[in-house]
């Protein structure tokens, strides 16, 4: 994932709507981290924003998107890293010195002012250089406040942009949520900022209002021509409005790209799952552009190494339904849900459930065939295929890693060795070794880990932080409390997020290798 953080992944040509050159970076974030009370809200994030574009930070709550926005606004100062505006370092500049304005989620209007005074707040504080000619004919400039007339003019224009003409004298509390949000937008754009920051601005509005405001914001962006940085957890909102989407999770960037590229070519299982509905399968490359999943070989467009284990994404709308014996796959319909525009049909193929979206319906219990064309199959590198830890051997010849202690077979460290009665290791050459405190590398496969409700039973304990359905099993991540070590495992049982579980690993499934030569006794 390191290479993704560096720069935008394949920024696609953007057509005539935004003829922008790559050099026109307005904001550049370089290796920025923000740590609150020992946890990193934003973890070494680097990205840039091009002048005039509509960029969206998208992710679940707690992914660091709002913190990133607040650092651009100047409300939070990065723990490390730099923020550049037009090439100049603004990392430590206070918010009132930045040519950036923010629209807050809960509007943050000033309740003791009327609409006019709210919108005029920034203008009344602003000083602009005015050029004069003195008696001797020399010109000089003076910083001067805007005149009453200029302010009136600008406030009127800003209110016209947000469709609130004539609301000047109204008080904030007499406006509806949608109107308040418009005032908040007017209050920000009236200052003619270089960048407008929007922190989930539509989060507090109802669905219909939200859809209307989405279209209006998009039009406003076109009309004003300033850069919009938008934060949302709503993937649909991000897809409809943005030129560029930055998908974030756990303070890190998962993928940067256009809405189309993020939807069609998600970089990993998380992005595929978060953006739109998707079927995720465990697959294996069985040849050149040939992938096997659900016991069938499919032609695909992505090229990976033969025999590599991969994640396969198939969007529900990319699966065609055929007669039972004509399809590439055969399965039984187990549920049909009407979703308005389409039906959502779940089909059981072998042990795997496949979700299909189609305008045609089928009956529950029907046996049908399924076809997936090569361009409907997207293949991703597996995020990880094995758990790897650093650990050490204890006096009792157990191994400590990942905030836990496990029984293991230490003789695998030295081929042909065995243990004597006192617990010393005797190598094949007959040398006696004390393994206490030996540093080792530990590898454990996803299938080798079991979790149990009885936390004490396990060698380590933690909470389930993520569950991703992979067609015929769940991929679960258990995170320990102390050092936040992750155990990734595959299981067929359904667990709940936040369950506190014990992690069990059979001794023969713990692979150990020496980190360095150990001292002889």
């Amino acid at each position, binding site marked *: 994932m390191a290479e993704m953080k560096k720069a935008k992944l394949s920024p696609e040509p953007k057509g005539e709507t935004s003829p922008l050159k790559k050099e026109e970076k307005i904001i550049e974030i370089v290796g920025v981290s923000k740590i609150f009370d020992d946890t990193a809200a934003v973890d070494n994030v680097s990205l840039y924003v091009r002048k005039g574009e509509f960029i969206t930070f998208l992710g679940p709550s707690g992914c660091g998107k709002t913190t990133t926005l607040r650092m651009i606004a100047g409300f939070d100062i990065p723990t490390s890293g730099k923020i550049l505006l037009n090439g100049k370092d603004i990392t430590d500049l*206070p*918010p*009132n010195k930045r040519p950036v304005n923010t629209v807050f989620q809960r509007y943050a*209007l*000033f309740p*003791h002012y009327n609409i006019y005074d709210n919108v005029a707040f920034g203008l009344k504080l602003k000083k602009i250089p005015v050029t004069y000619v003195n008696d001797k004919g020399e010109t000089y400039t003076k910083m001067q406040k805007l005149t009453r007339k200029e302010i009136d003019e600008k406030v009127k224009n800003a209110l016209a942009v947000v469709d609130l003409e004539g609301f000047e004298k109204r008080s904030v509390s007499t406006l509806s949520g949608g109107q308040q949000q418009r005032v908040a937008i007017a209050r*920000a754009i009236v200052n003619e900022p270089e960048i407008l920051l929007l922190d989930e601005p539509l989060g507090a509005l109802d669905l219909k209002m939200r859809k209307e405001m989405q279209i209006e914001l998009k039009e406003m962006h076109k009309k004003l021509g300033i850069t919009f940085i938008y934060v949302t957890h709503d993937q649909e909102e991000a897809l409809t409005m943005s030129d560029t989407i930055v998908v974030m999770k756990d303070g890190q960037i998962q993928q940067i790209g256009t809405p189309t590229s993020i939807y069609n070519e998600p970089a990993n299982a998380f992005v595929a799952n978060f953006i739109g509905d998707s079927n995720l399968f465990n697959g294996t490359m069985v040849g050149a552009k040939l992938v096997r999943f659900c016991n069938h070989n499919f032609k695909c467009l992505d090229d990976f190494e033969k025999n590599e284990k991969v994640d396969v994404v198939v969007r529900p709308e990319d699966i065609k339904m055929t007669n039972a014996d004509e399809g590439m796959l055969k399965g039984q319909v187990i549920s049909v849900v009407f979703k308005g525009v389409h039906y959502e049909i779940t089909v059981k193929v072998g042990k795997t459930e496949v979700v299909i979206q189609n305008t045609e319906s089928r009956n529950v219990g029907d046996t049908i065939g399924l076809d997936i064309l090569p361009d409907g199959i997207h293949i991703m590198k597996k995020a990880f295929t094995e758990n790897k830890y650093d650990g050490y051997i204890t006096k009792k010849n157990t191994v400590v890693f990942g905030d836990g202690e496990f029984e293991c077979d230490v003789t695998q460290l030295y081929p042909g060795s065995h243990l004597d009665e006192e617990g010393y290791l005797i190598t094949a050459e007959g040398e006696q070794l004390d393994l206490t405190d030996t540093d080792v590398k530990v590898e454990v496969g996803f299938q080798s880990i079991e979790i149990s409700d009885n936390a004490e039973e396990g060698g380590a304990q933690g909470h389930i932080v993520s569950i991703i359905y992979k067609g015929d099993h769940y991929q679960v991540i258990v995170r320990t409390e102390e050092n936040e070590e992750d155990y990734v495992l595959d299981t067929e049982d359904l667990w709940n997020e936040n369950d506190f579980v014990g992690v069990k690993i059979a001794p023969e499934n713990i692979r150990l290798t020496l980190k360095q030569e150990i001292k002889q006794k």
Partner: protein
Amino acid sequence: MVRKILSVALCVAVLLFIYSPILLLVVYSFTSANVIGKWEGFSFSLYGDLFRNAEIMQILLNTVVLALVAAALSTLLGTAGAIGIFYSKKRVAAPLRGISQIPVINAEIVTAISLALLFSMVAFYRTYFSLVIGHMVLCTPFVVLSVMPKLKQMDPNIYEAALDLGAGPTTALFKVVIPQIFSGITAGFMLSITLSLDDYIVTAFTKPKTFDTISTYVYNAVKNGTNSSTPALRALSALIFVVMIAAVLILNLRVRKHSAKESAK
């Protein structure tokens, strides 16, 4: 029906229990007898005496001026303190808030004696200055107490929005934060005035010898039981009571009007 009568009767009994001493005082302020309990016919003469008594008028003025000065200074200090505590880091804010409230629960006599001790050590003892400081010690915690909830209720983004629109921290404080917490500041100021007006203990321990407020004057005058040397004080007490009742009524009416306006929105 019986039940209703009983409940009304009980209410009346409770109110009588609370108010009968004051009622007695008010009734006897309309007779010129030197001793309470003796009725020498209805007259306003005590009220006349009261307003002709230059000493009492001076003391009344002293008390009001002291209350205004102490309340104003306490409000300034308490508001600044509340804002300071609110915007400090969590680790600092919690203990600060706790410490600032100790004077509220501390016995007033302890506060008064410690103030007296402190002032006698630093030579301000029994000056007008020490008196004002004493009253500020009394009032400031209550200002903090009434401003703090307003700060907590305030949308935290409002201050940030002001900064975002180009205001410096000071401008943002005066244009946005202070107006938002103004009702808390006023409440703190009013509370300080009432606390200062009727305070006896701290005043007695910190006031200059020749200076008196109403509380200390009345206390000295009636020290020997009911045989008050200045019966006009009965009229003064009755007046204070009426003024207080009026103040409470006006405040209540205003609150009711305000909430009616709020709900009308």
